[in-house]
């Protein structure tokens, strides 16, 4: 009896230790080390691992490519998160409104992209962005309008954001909708008697009441956005404007496996993790008062 809960937790704890705690510790260790090459770097004793202190970190912070990658991802996130969650909230409110038709069908259709792997989603949209394939260019061509390159410059951000919005809206919609449905009907009765319309009920009652789930979806969206990797990596073969270091995570991958500098990669990964945690917890803290309501449930 006394040992039972620990026995039940043992498999999870073991897996956590082996595949979460140990790798994190190892990454931290690596980030403070470096390889010293003596002579020509040939022979068995020529490459030795030595303590590097904060050297890898100062290099990372002054690395202009990492910084511009971070700026690209911030710009991308500034589009993805508000648009995706705005649409998710809009669709959830529409599903929850009275006398809506085809709700189960449309709900399933909007959720469907969740079941499509990010790589496949990027691949499908990637083709739809190509001038010879896209219906968008077809229409522009017929109208005799100029045809911008969707996979370059500013439009590239929109093109990448669209893939993330397409893939993520449905799941977030379900989370918000579930929380909408748990609001008891009596809450609306008084507002209706006061003559409030559906728009007012949505703005004054529904949105404030689902604020905890909005906070939660926001939180996870920030984390997912800062770690974007699959979509730009998949678009890379289709265009020259996505570099191998477009997002910070791609840079980590490139440094670790392209250049073989695992120490620099470990330091960058640590920085990304810390920035992600700071940003997401900073946001949670700002929304803390709302969060307490949820904890009380």
């Amino acid at each position, binding site marked *: 009896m006394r040992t039972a809960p620990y026995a039940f937790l043992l498999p999870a704890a073991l897996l956590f230790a082996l595949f*979460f705690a140990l790798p994190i510790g190892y990454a931290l260790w690596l980030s403070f080390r470096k390889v010293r090459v003596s002579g020509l770097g040939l022979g068995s004793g020529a490459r030795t691992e030595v303590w590097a202190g904060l050297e890898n970190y100062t290099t990372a912070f002054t690395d202009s490519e990492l910084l511009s990658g971070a700026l690209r991802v911030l710009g991308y996130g500034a589009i993805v998160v508000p648009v995706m969650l705005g649409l998710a909230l809009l669709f959830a409110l529409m599903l929850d409104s009275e006398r809506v038709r085809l709700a189960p069908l449309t709900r399933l259709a909007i959720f469907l992209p969740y079941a499509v792997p990010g790589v496949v989603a990027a691949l499908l949209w990637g083709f739809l962005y190509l001038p010879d394939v896209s219906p968008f260019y077809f229409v522009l061509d017929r109208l005799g309008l100029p045809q911008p390159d969707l996979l370059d410059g500013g439009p590239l951000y929109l093109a990448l954001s669209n893939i993330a919005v397409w893939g993520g809206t449905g799941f977030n919609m379900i989370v918000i909708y579930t929380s909408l449905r748990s609001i008891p009907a009596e809450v609306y009765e008084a507002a209706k008697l006061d003559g409030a319309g559906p728009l007012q009920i949505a703005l004054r009652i529904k949105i404030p009441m689902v604020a905890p789930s909005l906070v939660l979806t926001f939180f996870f969206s920030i*984390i997912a956005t800062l770690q974007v990797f699959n979509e730009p990596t998949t678009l890379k073969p289709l265009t020259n404007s996505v570099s191998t270091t477009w997002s910070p995570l791609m840079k980590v991958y490139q440094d670790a496996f392209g250049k073989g500098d695992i120490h620099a990669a470990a330091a960058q990964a640590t920085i990304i993790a810390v920035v992600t945690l700071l940003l997401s917890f900073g946001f949670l803290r700002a929304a803390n008062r709302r969060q307490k309501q949820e904890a009380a449930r």
Partner: protein
Amino acid sequence: MSSLALRESAPAADTTPGAAQGFPRRRRTALVPTVTLLLGAVYCLLPVAWVVIASTKSGSELFSTFTFLPGSGFTENLSDLNAYRDGVYWQWMGNSALYAVAGALLSAAVSACAGYALAVYRFRGREAMFNVLLAGVLMPPVILAVPQYLLLAQAGLTDSYLSVLLPQILSPYGVYLARVYAAAAVPADVVEAGRMDGASEWRIFTRIALPMMVPGLVTVFLFQFVAIWNNFLLPYIMLSDDEKFPITLGLYTLLEQGANTPALYTLVVTGAFLAVFPLVALFLVVQRFWSLDLLSGAVKS
């Protein structure tokens, strides 16, 4: 945009049952949500519809005919895909299924044990353990994947099935969901009654609690199944032998080669079309007895 859409589908709304002539205002309110949702559905189905159609186009039709005009090459594309490197495509599908089914089953089992323990017992360090497990959710996959690769390399396990399977068994979100469901579905007095009858803790868990937790565990299974099926970064880092690739990685390498050999693009498109199917089919089947709402931790309904 919305006002245009309103006008377009106005006639359809007249047939809405119960939308009596006398309540034009109420009928209008039902129209806005319906049209909004339909537009959303069209947006979400668009790329899927495209890949269905594009998989029927031959290599020359893919880049020359109108986007949504069906082509004439589906059977040829299919046999090309089957023939590509002795059917390695189906090997990728099989691998994805193996990773996802085995990983999700193990994940559901581990989550069930951990979630049950966290929900039913009071013990020292309970909240601390739960919080530490949850913190795992926040770890960027890459800070995990790179050292996971280096550690597994030292154990001689990289480029093996286990290297993709093992790191994906523990799902912090799965443990969280299992705890929520166990707390809601397993009443404390039922556990207590089992103890009175002299059943062991393990027996109470497997015979009494586990059946009660099944709907929640199906959710954990599905969640992890999708997560593993969709995962790209981990196999991308771990694997180099393409016989062990999951479908996401296989299609990516095919696309990458297509940049030099455009003839492969039809294979990529047909392959993407077939890769979309299993999960969509899974959700459509499962939908009958399982609710989407469970995915976000809803316990009522």
